[in-house]
């Protein structure tokens, strides 16, 4: 007997689920996104974490305060110096320790160099995600100079561990100032090339303008911070609102764009590179003389109580919360990492957009997965 198949609605589509990651070049690490999509329209994004969880917070409970610092290198490895600084500032706050001016200025300079290196890498990778591999090599060419500065002064290129509670591990290298000046001079000529190469590009503009709009209200309610929030016009720069280290004595603008789309987040980071250059230029010529470290006890014991310090990393606000019971180890240590909060808005933003736009949105958040998972 012959069966008759009657197709009622030939254009009816069904939702289906696919995995993006954990091994996907555009997720920049081991982030797995479970996508519910209808054709090419995204209905739902569920981030699945835990692939690179190393229980850093728990490990901190068994380490002394000097030893905690090196673990924070492994969180947001692109702003490792700023992470180190955050822990050291919290411990110094708890001990009521006043570090020398020299330490503050050096920390600020290296922190801004870290931010530059991070934004350079982000720029290269953003271009690569959108589909232009050229940017990647241009960014790494300039980033190499910063890495050389770090390697000469701190001993390592990425996981520097240069801060200790009470100051710095050792003094800056004699070549540090010259190298930094040479880099600034070099990079000031190269940064306009970044604009020429990517910013005006018609394909890049079409891929980013109007894609993944975050409204200011959403940014507040999801706890988005950093350049991602400043792209939506949200004032959120900790360096400006709660100055730490030497940020209270330098002039810089908080970069704000109000459109809230991928394009404006791109412009915030490009503009922030100019601000970082200006901060370094203001400080590099007059690094005060003095000690590079305040002597501390071999085993630091914090007084009983709760201590919190916020810093601005390249990705947003990093908070370090230490609950001390008076021992040499913290009773509880919590990191409020920028990547985790920024990721939480991804589902809200990506719904209704195309699959290809998801890559652009994710790249504009500048996610670092070890920072999210810790």
């Amino acid at each position, binding site marked *: 007997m012959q069966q008759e198949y009657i197709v009622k609605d030939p254009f009816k589509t069904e939702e289906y689920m696919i995995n993006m990651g954990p091994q996907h070049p555009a997720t920049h690490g081991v982030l797995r996104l479970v996508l519910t999509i209808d054709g090419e329209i995204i209905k739902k994004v569920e981030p699945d974490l835990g692939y690179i969880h190393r229980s850093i917070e728990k490990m901190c409970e068994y380490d002394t305060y*000097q030893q905690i610092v*090196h*673990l924070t290198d492994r969180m947001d490895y692109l702003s490792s110096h700023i992470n180190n600084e955050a822990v050291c500032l919290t411990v110094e706050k708890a001990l009521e320790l006043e570090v020398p001016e020299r330490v503050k200025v050096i920390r600020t300079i290296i922190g801004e160099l870290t931010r530059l290196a991070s934004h350079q890498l982000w720029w290269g990778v953003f271009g690569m995600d959108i589909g232009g591999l050229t940017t990647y090599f241009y960014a790494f060419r300039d980033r190499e100079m910063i890495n050389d500065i770090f390697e*000469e002064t701190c*001993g390592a290129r990425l996981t520097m561990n240069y801060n200790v509670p009470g100051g710095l591990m*050792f003094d800056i290298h004699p070549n540090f100032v010259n190298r930094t000046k040479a880099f600034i001079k070099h990079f000031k000529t190269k940064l306009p090339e970044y604009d020429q190469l*990517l910013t005006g590009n018609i*394909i890049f503009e079409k891929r980013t303008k109007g894609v993944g709009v975050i409204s200011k209200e959403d940014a507040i309610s999801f706890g988005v911070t950093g350049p991602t929030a400043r792209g939506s016009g949200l004032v959120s720069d900790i360096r400006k609102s709660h100055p730490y280290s030497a940020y209270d004595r330098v002039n810089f603008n908080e970069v704000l764009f109000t459109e809230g789309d991928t394009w404006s987040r791109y412009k915030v980071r490009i503009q922030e590179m100019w601000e970082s250059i200006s901060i370094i230029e203001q400080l590099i010529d007059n690094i005060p003389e003095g000690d590079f470290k305040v002597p501390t006890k071999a085993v630091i014991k914090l007084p009983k109580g709760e201590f919190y310090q916020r810093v601005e990393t390249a990705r947003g606000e990093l908070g370090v919360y230490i609950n001390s019971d008076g021992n040499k180890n913290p009773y509880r240590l919590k990191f409020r990492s920028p990547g985790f909060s920024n990721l939480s808005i991804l589902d809200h933003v990506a719904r209704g957009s195309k699959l290809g736009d998801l890559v652009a949105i994710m790249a504009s958040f500048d996610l670092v997965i070890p920072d999210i998972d810790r």
Partner: protein
Amino acid sequence: MSYFGDIVHGIGSLLNGMKVTSKYLFLAPKEIITQYYPDNRDTLKMFDRFRGEVIMPHDAENMHRCTGCQSCEIACPNGSIEIVWDRVVNEETGKKVKVIDKHIYHLSMCTMCGLCIQACPTEAIVWGQNFENSVTDRTQLTKVLNKPGSKVHPDVKE
């Protein structure tokens, strides 16, 4: 903007980007920053603060500066350093002195944080420049830093 204006603007923006890339096509030899790594091993010099691995320098008479105080072992966050030590009677003074038997360093667990070298009071351990550590078996990454038959330098006091 008109349809054709859009096209002209688009092509113009692409050409603008190609100006940069084509500039480097001709300037490339001046701007090369990459190194021919395995071929330049003889001339490759790392920075003096470079953190390759922890080493214990010995002088010509096979003497090191480690007193076995275990500061590095306590400072290490990962347990990369183990010190096997004993108390031995010093022949000159007749007192019992702490002497290391083995200074064991697990390179596979080391995160190059540098806390052990900061903690060392006698500068017995320093950073080495070697970074080529690939081996076929990870037990080969556990090293004994003091050489066999080595002694403490007489200048070093505990």
